[in-house]
């Protein structure tokens, strides 16, 4: 396997961990924030470096230069490929923008150190392809959240029950897969355990209550960063997709489709902004899962494109909501707030990101949603139409929230509520990406198509148990650097 020119991955993953250590030495909240911004910014630069370096190699996957992790933890412990390269950058961007856009009034409430630790775990998960590595890292990701909930004096029971169940099922499922004969189809029990585990982590209804509970009790920033990178979907691609037969994937796809419509309907009737955001996120994350599990090149391409689009727009949307909450407290959607005059830039950005989430034409989400609809209709001709219904309901919910928060009355304030410059920077970066990705969608779609083909190839290789020659041929193909995969 080819190597990158520098150890970008190791640098990207370890920088937040070092940052967390440095932040522990800071007593002052402002200094902690600056450390968090600096180290998460560096991690972003390294993650982007890994992506760019990987692009110059024109291969399907690559390792770090001076790779220290592989000899210790195995060949797949830290890999960059077509699938995870943009995800690493995007996740690093999310972790950079969140402390950047944190107002001084919230410095003492936002756990910057734990945030850096979470970033380390999240980037390590996304860079890892080894099943047990992913499972352990995903289990560790839950700890900072449990710590935060306990610190805030909130009950973490619902979260712990769900995550405990998720980890237990995942461990049991993968242990069975490991124990079974790899040349035969895996047992139904093992696949079912994995499937249910993934459904819990992705928040598929009715196993999604941990998510609303988390948004209610943890800080909005932490909840956003735990859910938005869609690590559950990542686990589905890395763990379930290569081993699961079609029936298991169809079950996940149907459950996700149901969740997408159900959560969109729930978002429409919510009376409080955080719960509304949680359901919106759930609905769109489920749409990504629908595309992933229909396992057609178009559906997968749509899912991977939507993944990036939804992550970007949901981050922007969540940060805007967080900025508003920082100024006026938790927001009821029962009534109109009329905040437009106080914060026109945030209002515009709220609308822009909201529309991007539902794949409005000219925004980054458009191409992905179109492809998911195509992919879903191809596999489930009638059921697939529900993707369109979910998108329509989400669109209605977003404009409802916009009107409730920014219009209907005039909000009177004796001080300026305008966006501060770090918020403006965050808004500008995300706006450029959202509109740029919408106006020039082809490079993104093309890159996701290559990733989709590679994922399908890997699945085919893994499922070809009874044909060892084909299996070897396909493995060779991947080992050669996927020259047939990526032109």
């Amino acid at each position, binding site marked *: 396997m080819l190597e990158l020119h520098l150890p970008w991955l190791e640098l990207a993953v370890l920088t937040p961990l070092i940052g967390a250590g440095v932040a522990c030495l800071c007593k002052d909240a402002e200094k902690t924030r600056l450390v968090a911004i600096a180290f998460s910014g560096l991690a972003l630069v390294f993650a982007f470096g890994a992506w760019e370096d990987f692009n110059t190699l024109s291969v399907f996957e690559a390792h770090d230069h001076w790779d220290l992790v592989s000899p210790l933890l195995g060949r797949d412990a830290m890999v960059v490929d077509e699938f995870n390269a943009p995800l690493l950058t995007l996740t690093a961007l999310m972790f950079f923008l969140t402390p950047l856009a944190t107002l001084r009034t919230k410095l003492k409430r936002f756990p910057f150190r734990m945030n850096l630790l979470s970033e380390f775990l999240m980037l390590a998960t996304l860079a890892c392809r080894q099943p047990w590595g992913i499972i352990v890292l995903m289990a560790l990701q839950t700890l900072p959240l449990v710590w935060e909930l306990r610190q805030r004096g909130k*009950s973490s*029971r*619902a*979260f712990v*029950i769900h995550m405990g169940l998720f980890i237990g099922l995942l461990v049991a499922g993968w242990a069975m897969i490991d124990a079974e004969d790899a040349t035969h189809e895996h047992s139904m029990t093992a696949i079912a355990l994995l499937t249910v585990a993934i459904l819990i982590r992705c928040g598929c209804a009715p196993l999604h*209550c941990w998510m*609303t*509970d988390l948004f*209610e*009790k943890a800080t909005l920033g932490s909840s956003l960063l735990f859910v938005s990178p869609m690590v559950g979907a990542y686990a589905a691609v890395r763990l379930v997709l290569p081993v699961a037969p079609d029936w298991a994937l169809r079950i996940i796809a149907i459950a996700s489709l149901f969740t997408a419509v159900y959560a969109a*309907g*729930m978002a*429409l*009737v*919510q*009376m*409080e902004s*955080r*719960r509304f955001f949680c359901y919106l996120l759930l609905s769109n994350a489920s749409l990504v899962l629908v595309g992933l599990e229909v396992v057609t*090149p*178009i559906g997968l*391409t749509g899912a991977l494109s939507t993944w990036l689009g939804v992550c970007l727009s949901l981050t922007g949307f969540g940060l805007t909501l967080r900025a508003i909450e920082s100024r006026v407290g*938790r*927001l*009821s959607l*029962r009534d*109109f707030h*009329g905040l437009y*005059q106080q914060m*026109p*830039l945030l209002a*515009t*950005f709220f609308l822009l990101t909201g*529309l991007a989430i539902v794949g409005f*034409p*000219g925004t980054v989400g458009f*191409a992905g949603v*179109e*492809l998911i*609809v*195509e992919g879903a*209709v191809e596999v489930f001709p009638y059921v697939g*139409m529900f993707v*369109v219904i979910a998108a*329509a*309901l989400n*669109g*209605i919910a977003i404009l409802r929230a916009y*009107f409730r928060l920014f*219009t*209907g*009355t*005039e909000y*009177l*304030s004796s001080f300026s509520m305008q966006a501060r410059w770090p918020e403006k920077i965050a808004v*500008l970066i995300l*706006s450029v990406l959202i509109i740029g990705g919408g106006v020039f969608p*082809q490079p993104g779609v*093309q890159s996701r*198509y290559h990733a989709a083909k590679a994922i399908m190839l890997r699945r085919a290789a893994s499922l070809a148990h009874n044909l060892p020659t084909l299996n070897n041929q396909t493995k060779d193909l991947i080992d050669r650097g996927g020259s047939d995969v990526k032109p």
Partner: protein
Amino acid sequence: MDLELFYRIAGITTVASPLVLLALLGIPCLVARPPSEKSITRLIYGSVVIGLSTAVAILVAMLISGSRHVPIDLGDWISLPEEHFDFHLKFVFDRLSVPFVILTYLLCGTIGAFTSRYLHREPGYVRFYVAYALFMLGMVCATLAGTIEVLFFGWELVGLSSALLIAFFHERRNPVRNGFMAWCVYRIADAAFLIAAVLMHHLTGAGDFEVLMGQGSWPEGVASITQTQALWIGLLLVVAAAGKSGLVPFSGWLPRAMEGPTSSSAIFYGALSVHLGAYLLLRISPILELSIWLSGTVVTLGLLTAVYATLAGRVQADIKTALAFASLTQVGIIVVEIGLGLRYIALIHILGHAAVRTLQLLRAPTLLHDYHVLENALGGHLPESQIWLWKILPQSSKRWFYLFALERGFLDELLNRIFVRPFVACFRLFDSLERKWTNLLSGDTHVESDAVALHDEIIEELKY
């Protein structure tokens, strides 16, 4: 200059003109540096003049050269050739699109000039023109669309700008509620449109109108799908058109849309947006011809809308709402014409009606003055007209018709009862069950969001 090259340059300019306008107005707003009123007016004039001139130039060139169908192919916006998936950027200048795009530019120019004075120094001046640029781009894309995807693109932009402009006076609740209602109807229409577009893609392998509607230039194409397929796809597109044009049963949003500024009411709901549904039906008329049931549905829908709107319009107490129903009556008649296959008549009807209605709506604020001038000239009150049917109807029927018209056919109530309330009640029940379940799991008695206070309209420092 080579004629093909001329068509290409002029075609691209016609489409790019509103796009550039939107970028020039929108980007400064995103960096919190909105342009001045003077700059906005200049940009609007420039954009409209350029777009209109090139559209007229194409028309003249088409008349001279005898071309009836000029496609401008800009290649693929999104393309996955191995999967036979593409989003083709193609625009078509033909007998249907050229009059429409010229009308769009003419009316947008008129409204742009009118509004620069009408909204002078209003706080939402820039916001209006950003939505206006979005609308103009949407209309130009939708009318010139050569593929169903481009038409959908424009269709969505028109919907968003409509909803935002209805809610233009957003410090008040009613405009906002009405804008939201229009958006809900648009989203349903958009969903139907998207499903139809995906189905068409699956059936023909392309979204190009030339493939879908046959090679012949409008209106002579012959659709390449079966009768049953035409019926289902056609029905979805009829739903889309009904939502956009406010046909029965989606008519409730149209009179409510008059809450917006007079200039946007004129251009959207009197002239262009309200006819976009009819335009869609004209564009897909080869599909309508394939199925008698589909044509019958279109005629029935048009008739119902025309009768409903003429009844409701007669009892309205304000001029803008009365004009909205008058518009709807005409749109209903236009839809009947399309259903009957009278395509040229429908097109001419749309053009004439849009121009007249824009004038009427722009004059609406000075209605009383106009009446006084008219009555002074006549030397007395204007005569009251009454239809003969009204004279022979029994009193109880008159009362029923009056109530029916006053309540706008109970359409809003009907949709609320059948769809909205059960939907909301059902999901609120789920929400309450979920809260109980989460509380049970976490051992809490309530969730924090239950305790979030309503917004009270006092300065926040005084709350504590």
